[in-house]
Each structure stands twice: as structure tokens, then as C-alpha cells.
């Protein structure tokens, strides 16, 4: 059964197409992001060596034909480690944001729809969470739960829930006043059905745009946590962890720090460009530009 009414507007797919044509920066961001995703997915094929294979004889060698980006203190190939690190970063990023979107979005939907006390309670908790810095919150959750991939995802999702709740609540408040919701209630639809099948599709837009913007933040938080030492445990390759390891030998082997940094930067910039473009494309005020 389809939604009673999808508010008039262009479908998200067409909007994406229009955006790619009109905003070169955003499409550049999208293209690069796609490249990174492909690189991560096909990492085992693209990486020449096992990222965790140690070769003490070849430790700390600069970039060469055999080791494209050099080796680290344990003789592990940097290029392979970066590729596999991409997998970790992207996986954690996407998983945590998906989790945050689901939980935060539902909470915001509930708060906006129910109003009154439910709204006040949920939003006060969200407000308090919002004022806590992401990194510190993530740090503490990981400290409490212990560093592992699953816990990292939970931790980062935790830091992102409040913004999604906020962004889901506002349009819910507006939409619940509309006639087709009244009509649905008159037809005897349950609250849950109205919320999930009728309101949710209409606010999905804004949630997804925020998701793309927060993906960059999530990846940055993961890298930062790895740098502090709270990331996925070694010997698994993570970008932040590689920088942490390389920090000590920065003077002798700068490539250990430079290449993972470039990787992080490339992902951050392209995700930011993409997120910005998506946000501009869906902003009604900017429609005529």
C-alpha cells in the first residue's frame, strides 16, 4: 500500500541528476567518493601484499617499485594497508551513520508526532547530547565499552543520534498538521502506520542529506579515535592508527604519516563537497540559482 500522499516535488533521483549537471564541485566529490568506495571494495585485488604481513628486513623503506608507498616499522606495505584501511573507515562510517539515522530519525519522528511530554523529554535528552563534543563522547563510549569495531560503530552512532533526531522532528511537526494525516486518522490508521508509511517518506530527504554531511564527520571521528589509540585494535590497518604509528618516526619516514593523511583528506573533501551539493540542491531557497 503506497503512501497516501507524497508531497509534490521532484523525486530524489531526478534531483540528484540535476545536481550533478549543475554543480560541478558536487559531482567531482561524488566521483571521487565513488572511486574510494570502489578501491575499498576491491582492496584485496588492488593490494599487492597482505596488509599485515611483516617483513623486518624491509622495514621503513621509502616508496619504491616493489612497495608503492613504502613500508612501516614492521615492514608492512603501506599501499595495501591504506587500501584495507579504506574498508575499515568506510564500513564504520556508513554503519554508524546508518544506525544514527535509524535511531535518531525514529526518535525525532516520535517526538514530533506525539508532541507534549514525549517531545519534551526526548528533545531535552537530545539537547544535552548535542552539547557534548562528538569526540569526547565517542572517546568515553569506547572507553566504557572497549575498543572493537562493533563498539566503535556504536560509539560514533551515539554521537550522531541527536542531530538526526532534530532534523527529523522539525518537518514532522509541519507535516502532521496536514490534511492527509487527518484523513488517515479518520480512516482508522494507527499512529505507527501514519508515522512510518506516510510521514517518514516525506522527511527522508532531509535525513539523507544530513547523513551525507555526517558521514564525513563519522570518518573523521573514527580516524581521530584510532589516532588516540581507541580505534580498531592493531594489527588491523586503520588510517588513524597508521598515523599514530608513524608519528614516532615522522622525521625519518615522513611517508608513513603523509600517505594516510592524504587518504583521509581526499575522503573528507570529497564527502564534504558531495554533502554540500546535496544540501544546496534540496534547499528550497536556492532553487533558482
Amino acid at each position, binding site marked *: 500500500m503506497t503512501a497516501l500522499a507524497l508531497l509534490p516535488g521532484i523525486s530524489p533521483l531526478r534531483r540528484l541528476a540535476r545536481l550533478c549537471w549543475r554543480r560541478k564541485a558536487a559531482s567531482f566529490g561524488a566521483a571521487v567518493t565513488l572511486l574510494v568506495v570502489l578501491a575499498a571494495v576491491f582492496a584485496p585485488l588492488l593490494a599487492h601484499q597482505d596488509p599485515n604481513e611483516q617483513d623486518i628486513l624491509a622495514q621503513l623503506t621509502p616508496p619504491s617499485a616493489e612497495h608503492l608507498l613504502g613500508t612501516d616499522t614492521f615492514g608492512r606495505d603501506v599501499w595495501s594497508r591504506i587500501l584495507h584501511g579504506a574498508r575499515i573507515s568506510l564500513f564504520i562510517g556508513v554503519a554508524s551513520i546508518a544506525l544514527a539515522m535509524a535511531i535518531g530519525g525514529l526518535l525525532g519522528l516520535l517526538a514530533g508526532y506525539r508532541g507534549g511530554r514525549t517531545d519534551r523529554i526526548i528533545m*531535552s535528552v537530545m539537547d544535552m547530547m548535542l552539547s557534548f563534543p562528538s*569526540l569526547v563522547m565517542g572517546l568515553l563510549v569506547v572507553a566504557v565499552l572497549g575498543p572493537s569495531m562493533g563498539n566503535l560503530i556504536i560509539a560514533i552512532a551515539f554521537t550522531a543520534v541527536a542531530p538526526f533526531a532534530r532534523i527529523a522532528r522539525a518537518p514532522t511537526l509541519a507535516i502532521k498538521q496536514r490534511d492527509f494525516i487527518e484523513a488517515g486518522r479518520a480512516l482508522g490508521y494507527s499512529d505507527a502506520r501514519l508515522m512510518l508509511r506516510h510521514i517518514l517518506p516525506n522527511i527522508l530527504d532531509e535525513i539523507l542529506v544530513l547523513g551525507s554531511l555526517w558521514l564525513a564527520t563519522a570518518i573523521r571521528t573514527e580516524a581521530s579515535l584510532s589516532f588516540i589509540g581507541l580505534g580498531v585494535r592493531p594489527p588491523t590497518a586503520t588510517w588513524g592508527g597508521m598515523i599514530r604509528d608513524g608519528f614516532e618516526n*615522522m622525521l625519518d619516514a615522513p611517508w608513513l604519516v603523509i600517505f594516510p593523511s592524504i587518504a583521509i583528506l581526499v575522503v573528507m573533501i570529497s564527502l564534504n563537497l558531495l554533502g554540500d551539493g546535496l544540501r544546496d540542491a534540496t534547499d528550497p531557497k536556492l532553487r533558482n540559482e
Partner: protein
Amino acid sequence: MFLYTLKRLLLAIPTLLGVLTIVFVIVRIAPGDPAIVILGENATRDAIEQLHAQLGLDVPIWQQYLNFMGQVLSGDLGRSMITNRPVLSEVWRVLPYTMELTVAALAIGIAVGLPLGVIAARHRNKAADFVIRCLSLLGLSFPAFISAILLLLVFSIQLKWLPVIGEASYADPDKRLAALILPALNLGLIMVAYITRVTRSSMLNVIGEDYIRTARAKGVPARWVIWRHTLRNALIPIVTVIGLYLGVLIGNSVLTEIVFNRPGLGKLIVIALNSRDYPTLQAMLVIYAFVIVLANLFTDLMYGVIDPKVRNQ
């Protein structure tokens, strides 16, 4: 204004209690027994129970809660398990460093970010706007620790303009200032990126308002319209966002302190984490809670100054 301030101060109290409760909950929901985590799997029963008593974990949870709140509100933050010194004194020792870093970064952020945002809004879609937006994007895309490492590499190591920092740097005020520059710059540039963005978009919103048209119709000179009329109104959302960014600042200061080997709250937390110093961890959380409530209070008070509608309720 006075009434408004009073109201805000009073509201801050339940907020503080609420945040402290959240802190308590976070620390207690850890799966597993902290005593086992600290002592290891093979610890004896007695040792575990002794540690429990030491950590105050041997009483029912509601009593733990009351003990916790009572201690915090009377200023007792427990003792570090490593140094056995009161946590509060450790915090007092490093607080000035964190404060000076935060204030310097915020100052740089506002002093540079605000004008850049205004210029970008004024010359929308032209060259200046484009350049400023690019720089802003770069600033946002650099995670704090990477930019810190980059600054360290370039300025301290390659160019040798500024010293690589060590603990001894802090005795001498000159050296202390020199040791502040790079970390403040690191955080400051990130703040510049954020503040430029929000200033630009807030200004653009206000420029389209009717009262700006009225000001121009009065013949108010263009520069006056931008600074006195537009910016003054744009500040309201900007201050909100800066209040939110204080959190970002605090988070990033942790990373900066690590890279630059600077004493401060962030460093303290990381050391506590690595050595499983439970009481210190808990106390650090409490400190952060306080700081955040204070920051929010400050933002609210700023509203009272900027927005007459809020003042005259």
C-alpha cells in the same frame, strides 16, 4: 536583563544535574566489572572485593548515585589510582593550559572567521566568495590531528621557526607564549572554517530581509548597512552555532594536546584511559559536563545581550 540572567542561572542547575546523571549512567553501564578489568582475570575474590569497596562499588546503585552526586557537588572528585593525588588538584594544575588554548583558538576563529564570512556574503558568487569557501572547505576537511602534524612538520621541524614543545617550556612566560602559537593556530584555523561558513549563510539570510531594504531606502551608506544592520542581526544564529562549536573546540583540543605534547585536560583524559584510571576518568567526565553547561549558559547570556526580544520577556 537582570531577570533574564537570573532565570538562566537558575535553569542551569537542573541542566547540570541532568548532565551529571547522564555521566553517572554512562560510566555505570559498562559491561563487565571494572575491578576485573583493572586487576585482570585471575584476581582473587578478596582483591576484587577490596577494589570494589575502594571504588565505592559495593553499595546498591541508588546509593552509588547519591554518593556520586554528593561528592561531585561538594567538590570531591576522588583520587587518581595512579598518582593517588586528588583528581581535582590534577585538574587545577592543567586547567590554565587548556583555558588559554581554548580562548586563543576562539579569539582567532572569531577575529578571522567573522570578517571572512561577511566578505563572502557581500561578494556572493564572485571570486572572493569562491576563494573563501574553498579555504573554509579545506579547514573543515582537515581532522585536527592531521593539521596539527602538518603544522608541526612545517613550522617546527622544517622551518625551525617555533620550538618543538616539551614540558620545560612552561616555566618561562615567553616560552609559554611560543608554545601556545602552533596549537592555538591549529584549533583556531578549524574554528575559522566553521565560523566563516555560518557567518556567510547567516548574513545571506539577513540580507534578504525587509528591514535591510528599509535601511537602504533611508540612504544608509552600504558599509553601515552591512556591519551595523546586517551583521548585528546575523549574530543571533551565529552565536548559537558558536555555542555548539565550543564542543567541537574542546574535542579537538584533546587531539591538539596529544600531537603537540601539551599539558591539558585532553592529555589527562587519554592517560587515564590508557591506564584504566577509573576515578580520574569519571572525574574528567564530570569536568566536561561542567564546562559544557557553563558554555551553554554563556551562550544564553550572550543572546540576552544581542537579542532585545529575548531580554524583554
